[in-house]
């Protein structure tokens, strides 16, 4: 009985993975297809869609915008995340659970609701829609990820390491520079990479708050109206996919390294 069940479980897991990743595999496949129509059988191999990408000024603008937004959102949400993670992991204070719950809330809020409410607030404040407003929106949705990654880095950080540093004559700033920062650096890098990736791939908030300066996902959305441009979009999408995958893998490596350090530091306590 259980043997039959376990065989079906394997089949189920296989189908599940196919369902998840098959469409994603089509993206790079059609992006090197000679035909402009994404359908089988493939017409032939070409790299022309990729070659044409850098020749599109609007795309380059969008890529540049995405880069700026991604970098700003990553840095801001990591700085705010450091403050939050340190407070939550180090101090016991009233409303601690509520605070960490609220920080995590954007993770489960419908993004479109978030985007609309942000739009209303920004317009009623009299702000112009620009990359800056996109950055604000992205910081909001990146923080839960930053805090999650950083919490893991800060949690279990043996407090006596900082005390030992002070005991050996180091000042508070010196202790931060020579002990705290190197200890949590992998977690910080991981947080930067994760939030950059999320910002890079985010569509709804960027769509609502971008104004005339669009980011890459919004640009892609705009291109979808023109059937002839679809292969270019596929090529761009493939690049984004590969870029995100590399960034997130690196982030995960960093996160694990942070965890190892922390565990070793507190192992004997």
């Amino acid at each position, binding site marked *: 009985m259980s043997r039959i069940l376990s065989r079906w479980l394997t089949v189920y897991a296989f189908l599940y993975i196919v369902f998840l990743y098959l469409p994603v595999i089509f993206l790079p496949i059609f992006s090197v297809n000679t035909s402009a129509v994404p359908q089988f059988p493939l017409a032939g191999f070409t790299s022309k869609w990729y070659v044409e990408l850098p020749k599109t000024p609007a795309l380059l603008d969008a890529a540049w915008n995405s880069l700026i937004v991604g970098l700003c959102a990553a840095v801001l949400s990591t700085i705010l995340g450091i403050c939050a993670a340190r407070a939550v992991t180090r101090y016991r204070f009233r409303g601690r659970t509520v605070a960490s719950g609220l920080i995590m809330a954007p993770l489960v809020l419908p993004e479109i609701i978030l985007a609309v409410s942000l739009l209303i607030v920004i317009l009623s404040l009299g702000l112009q829609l620009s990359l800056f407003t996109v950055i604000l929106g992205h910081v909001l949705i990146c923080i839960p990820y930053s805090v999650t990654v950083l919490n893991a880095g800060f949690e279990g950080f*043996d407090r*006596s*390491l900082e*005390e*030992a*540093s*002070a*005991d*050996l*004559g*180091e*000042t508070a700033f*010196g202790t931060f520079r*020579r*002990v705290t920062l*190197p*200890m949590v650096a992998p977690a910080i890098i991981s947080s930067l990479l994760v939030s950059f990736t999320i910002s890079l791939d985010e569509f709804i908030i960027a769509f609502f708050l971008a104004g005339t300066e669009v980011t890459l996902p919004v640009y892609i959305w705009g291109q979808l109206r023109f059937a002839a441009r679809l292969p270019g979009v596929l090529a761009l999408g493939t690049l984004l996919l590969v870029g995100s995958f590399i960034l997130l893998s690196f982030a995960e490596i960093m996160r694990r390294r942070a965890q*190892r*350090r922390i565990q*070793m*530091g*507190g192992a*004997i*306590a």
Partner: protein
Amino acid sequence: MPDRPMIQIAGVSKAYGSFKALDDATLTIREGEFFSLLGPSGCGKTTLLRMIAGFDTPTEGTIAIDGQPMDGIPANRRPTNMVFQSYAIFPHLNVDQNVAYGLKRLKLGAAEERRRVDEALAQVSLSGLGKRGATELSGGQRQRVALARALVMRPKVLLLDEPLSALDKKLREQMQVELRRLQQAVGITFVLVTHDQYEALGMSDRIAVMFGGRIAQVAAPSQIYQRPVNRQVADFLGGMNFIRANVVETNGTAITVETAGFGRVKTEKPSGFNDETRETTLGIRPERLRVLWDDAKAKHEIAGTIVDRHYFGEITHFIVDVPGFEKTLSVSESNNFGADDLPVGAPVRLGYDPDALVALAD
């Protein structure tokens, strides 16, 4: 200069809200002394150590180190260094870098720094392991690195917070000997916090026994063990037989009590004894009672019956019922005699030295 005070703790208290972790502690630790703060967990010993180090601030009272009041002086400007219970080895640095951590700020120059690091590593028998990463060290090695890292700073006082508690028994015993040897070699004042009475007895010049935030007794190990001031101290330092006794008379520093088996005993009056008290406790350590074989005689003896026996290898514990005592006596007898010959139920005579009897405050 012998007996020069190194740490003077005057009326120090530490309160967390209404809870007093440390209550009016007054204590002088001498220069070059191996001093232990001994007590069960929550007795305030670690709180006191952390206040000497500067990690916590006293609610009341002052601490002076080498004549300098430490009020308002943070940990990084105190002439103390600490070996942490968790060792707190910096995991992102190797052994050399860990040991040199505090030296970096002194700007000694590369050659002098190297020399001091090597010297410290040699002191703790870790020469040649300088390039080892912190993650590649065993528990015992981590402890040695923590020691070297503190000693290399040449502090006036080395503070040790339960440094041996994470080690296994054999390594712990070996480290006790080594710590004692190290302390005598460097001549620095050591202050050790421990809950292990054998550790404190074996290494210290003097011990402060603490209970519930208060210092109960400060004395040399043999004094603490043989002449504890009260039942709590006596009990914490190892097994002791307690016998209810009537107070016959008190006179200055002497007290005379009377019990069934031991009769009238004149002994030292425990400090802080209330002369109005009519009833108190007389104590004797199990190893100070000895079984009298065959027709061996002792100047002072009591008789009883063996009700139980426990074999421990080097010693045997006899539980002896003595007529007139509320509780049985525990007797520990070294096994180089024929302890096997005494079965449960056999009558037995016990010899003792009246000096071994101590009057205890309750």
